[in-house]
Structures are given as structure tokens and as C-alpha cells.
């Protein structure tokens, strides 16, 4: 699966720590998501979409 998490975070000038806090996960998880080492659970994917105010399919793609 592909994702645009790092770009979206950079556009908002957020640190990994800030995004991790908004999502309620660790910075390791944010890093693993951004580097494509981990695909999030459905609840976390929805949370990411809410935080960035974008539909899931614009953040994640096959």
C-alpha cells in the first residue's frame, strides 16, 4: 500500500511528535507509517483522514 503521510505532515510543518500526539500513537508508529514499513489499522486510517481533513483514498492508495 502507498501513502502520502510524510508529504501531508511536511505541508503542515508538523513534527512527528505532534502528529503522533494528534493520532494517539507513538512516534515509532508515525515513522513506520511514513516509511511504508507499516499499514495502519482501519480505525487508525480513519483517524489519519480526520486529522488531515482528507478522504482516506487521497492519503492511501493501492
Amino acid at each position: 500500500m502507498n501513502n502520502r503521510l510524510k508529504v501531508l505532515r511536511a505541508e503542515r510543518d508538523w513534527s512527528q511528535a505532534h502528529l503522533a500526539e494528534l493520532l494517539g500513537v507513538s512516534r515509532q508508529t508515525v515513522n513506520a507509517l511514513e516509511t511504508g514499513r507499516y499499514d495502519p489499522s482501519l480505525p487508525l486510517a480513519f483517524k489519519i483522514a480526520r486529522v488531515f481533513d482528507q478522504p482516506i483514498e487521497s492519503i492511501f492508495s493501492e
Partner: protein
Amino acid sequence: MTVSSRESSRLPRRLLTAFGSGAAIGAAGYLFGRLALPGLIGPDAFDGVSVRWSDAVAALTGVALMIGAGAVMVISLDPRRLGRMYGLDEPASAEEGRQVRLQAVVMGFSGLILVLPIVFALAGLAGGLAMGLIVLLFAVHTVLNVRVWRGVDELLRRTTMEAATATFFLGQGLLFLWAAAERLGVLPPLTAWDIYAVLMTLYLMVSAIASARRGLA
């Protein structure tokens, strides 16, 4: 720009180097014990000492876990180094360091309780007392394990479940083949200790690979 999970799931070189180094050190230790040690402490020093192949496997895995725990503990004391290890954009926080140290304690504890039955048996400690100590340490280990599980998020939980699943399928496959061979009289019977030593070694290897693939090692 997008990032793909397929491209990033290869086994890191760092883990392969660690496995290679461990194998080289293990081979050197074996050769030392086999060839040089009898000359140093006397050729009869090990007479009467009953050590099974599974004791060697368990000892190797237990020591590897304790060394790994020590290394993680040292790294956790340096926030910058810990941050680099996890690929974070800033040094690790005090809370992240604390969480990693708790995980290191559990890892070291796993190694300790794997080695202790061998040590107690070789030291001739009374069975009841030795078993009581092991049960006590196992209870402490379980409490620590639960604390780690409750303190981590879905990344570490999923990594743990993946490692457990892979270990189950590999372990049951190996056990089935051995059990079939044993039933047919082709291979000798196994003890519970033999099975446990292999299972823990398998779990250590699988969880190291699963963690490395997620950027956790």
C-alpha cells in the same frame, strides 16, 4: 510523493549483520569450549555433567536475549542514539526512553528465566526450591509483559502478533514432522524442555525479523 509498504519491507542490513556476527561469535565460543577449555580446566572437568543439545540451544538464546537487552538499555540512555535507531526526526523523549528500558528489562528477563533451569539443574539446587524460584520469576515476567503490552500502541502489538503467528505455524510444522518421525521410530522422543528451547529460539529469530521489518530494531 508517496511511499510504498512493499518497497520498504526488506530485511535491513543491520539485522543480517547482527545475525552474522552472532553466528561467528557463537562458532568461536563453540570452538573455544570444544578445543581450548578442556586444556585449561582439565579434560575431566565436565565428566558427570549432563547437558542436552536443548540446554545449549536454550543457553545460547538466553544469553543472546540478555546481551540484546543490555545493548538496548545502553542505547536507551542516549536520547539522540535512540531517536536515530527508530528513525525519529528528534531525539527520543524521556517517556520513550522509559518505555524502551521496560521492554529491555522484559527481554533480559526472558533470557534469564530461559537459562535459570539449566543453571539450577547443573548446580544441583533442590527441585522444589528451584521450581519455586522459577515460578516466582515467571510471575514477575508475566506482569512486566502485560505492562509492556498495555503501554504500547498498535504497531508493536501487531508486530508481536505477527511474530507469534509465524512462530506458531513454523513451530507446529516442525513439531508435527518430528512427532511423525518419532511415531515411526525414525527419530528419538523429545522432552518438554527440548520443545520449549526450540520454540523460544524460533520466536526470538522470528520476532527480530518482524521488528526489523517494521523499523523497530
